[in-house]
């Protein structure tokens, strides 16, 4: 696996700040851009959060986990269930739903992926296992939470104006929590001793173990944090529309593309590319009046980038 390359020679944050300045200027000057940026950033904040969680798992454990989609779905289901059955407010259920999704993420690791790894299942088979698990959960969850779509029972959100564009308060909160969470997790990995252990484990498992890293604890922590991000993203996704068992899988392709393409520039690249994707989705949708076209354009563009910049087969060097 490619070692964690969070720090690059051209600092991503500098690029982000530059892009941010351009965005603010454009938004202040033109209506179309204002709508695109404000709506794009706020409505697609969950995408960034979900992609960030996925990227953590992918880059730190090397597993491309299709069933991550169901941590998103589960986060949304837990929240809507607590909201509907006990009448708890949206902001109250947010945290427990995220935590529960994190716990479930850890459960899938311990019950399935860790066990499979112990049985020396290959990389390709691991991906297929995660695909099977994803399908299983998508359908099994319907027996738990019902076949119907469910919606949050919350009062119509207050809207405020940003650059002349009306945005609901909870969407702004979504954006803020995405920013906060990604910063916290990023700092956690970069600055704390646990973060150091995580990075050590990701780059060389054997060496890390020899120098006192306890792989199981650290790995569980990674799965938990990833699940937490996914679950919270799910709650925001669900509150923005409604909740059903395909909520996560419907978003998965975009998440995957953001992670694989953004990942070329490290974890922060995932955040930046995720944001840009959200804005582009909104922009193209506004321009052509159909969100499917936006998705089409982005999928094609991402696949192109992947073809020419993506990770190559590395085993060619063995011969």
């Amino acid at each position, binding site marked *: 696996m490619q070692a964690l390359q969070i720090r690059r020679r051209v600092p991503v944050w500098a690029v982000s700040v530059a892009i941010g300045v351009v965005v603010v200027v454009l938004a202040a000057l033109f209506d179309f851009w204002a709508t695109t940026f404000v709506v794009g950033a706020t409505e697609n904040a969950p995408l960034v959060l979900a992609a960030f969680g996925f990227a953590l798992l992918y880059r730190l454990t090397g597993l491309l986990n299709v069933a991550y989609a169901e941590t998103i779905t589960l986060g949304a289901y837990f929240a809507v269930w607590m909201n509907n059955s006990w009448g708890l407010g949206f902001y109250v259920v947010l945290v427990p739903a995220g935590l529960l999704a994190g716990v479930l993420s850890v459960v899938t690791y311990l019950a399935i992926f860790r066990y499979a790894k112990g049985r020396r299942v290959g990389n*390709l088979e691991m991906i297929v296992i995660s695909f099977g698990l994803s399908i299983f959960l998508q359908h099994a969850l319907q027996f738990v939470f019902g076949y119907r779509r469910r919606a949050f029972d919350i009062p119509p959100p207050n809207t405020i104006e940003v650059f002349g564009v009306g945005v609901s308060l909870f969407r702004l909160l979504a954006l803020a929590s995405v920013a906060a969470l990604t910063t916290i997790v990023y700092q956690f990995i970069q600055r704390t001793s646990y973060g150091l252990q995580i990075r050590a484990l990701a780059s060389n498992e054997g060496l890390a173990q020899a120098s006192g890293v306890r792989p199981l604890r650290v790995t569980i922590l990674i799965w938990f944090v990833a699940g937490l991000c996914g679950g919270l993203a799910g709650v925001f996704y669900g509150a923005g529309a409604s909740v059903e068992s395909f909520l996560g899988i419907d978003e998965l392709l975009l998440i995957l593309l953001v992670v694989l393409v953004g990942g070329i520039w490290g974890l922060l690249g995932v955040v930046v590319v995720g944001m840009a994707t959200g804005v582009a989705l909104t922009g193209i949708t506004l321009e052509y009046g159909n969100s499917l076209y936006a998705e089409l354009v982005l999928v094609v563009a991402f696949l192109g980038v992947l073809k020419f910049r993506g990770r190559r*087969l590395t085993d060619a060097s063995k011969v």
Partner: protein
Amino acid sequence: MNLDWLDAFLIFGAFKVVEIMGLGLLVHLQLGLTRVANFGVVGFWGVGLYAFGVAYLKVDWPFGDLYQFLVCAAIATIVAAAAGLVVGWLISDLDDDGTLVGTLGFATIVVILATTQQGLTGGALGLGGLGFPYDFGRVKTHEFTWLLITTAVVVLIFAYAWRVHRTPHGRLLIAVGANEALARSLGKSATAARLRMMTVTSGAMGLLGAMHGVMVRSLEINSLDVSVTLAALAALILGGTARVFGAVVGVLLTVALFDIVIQFYIPIPDGWNTQALPVAREAVFGAAIVLMLIFRPQGLLGQMRRPALMRRLHGDW
């Protein structure tokens, strides 16, 4: 032909079994021999289905039903084969993760195009008006005949897969799947081998899509569902990815079990058929993939048995 003894739904159940068997055999060549995991089977099948439907309905063909079918089915096969070529090129030097995203992305593109190009495909509403390339009077006879014809096509696919194991082409695919770098150093173009395999197998998937279009006589966006991919993958993995009979055995234990045995011969409460059973079916298929790959990754039939086959082919060595 007197077909009163035959339930119309049973014909459809059997058609599904045969169709998924065909797809499973093709996935066997991709995943079992060449180790290309195609998560977008439905995309190649669907592009065939829609290419067939659009060519059939939107072009004013100057000849009768039979030739119209043959021409449109050929178009479907060619379009799907071209798609296989493009996707194969896209994923040709990416790792397994890239393959997942490439094939999944392709399937999504197909769904989006089928939905948005309403003038051609009827979009979310769908499009009726496809028909059988013959006319004997009764619909049931038509459907039964079509089941037989499709079965013949799948038998041909089986024969092809069976033969691939016995030719230098199959050996090359196994070599590329097992050790791409070593195959390259022996002068084999792994990329060309994979592209050829993807083109042929995707074309055949497209043909199966066209056959499906005739049977259901309409284009429906809901049919472009991941459950097509799932059924083919789950059946193959259950039976054994590396064996020709893997898909056959697997489909009998999965699709045939659910879509024929349970639906028709097991007394289940009213209402389950429409909701609980289809959902349970998908959940069971997903669980089967997970459990098989953890506990018996080679499937029920077991590993590829190359020495035995070589003994049959070259026993006099």
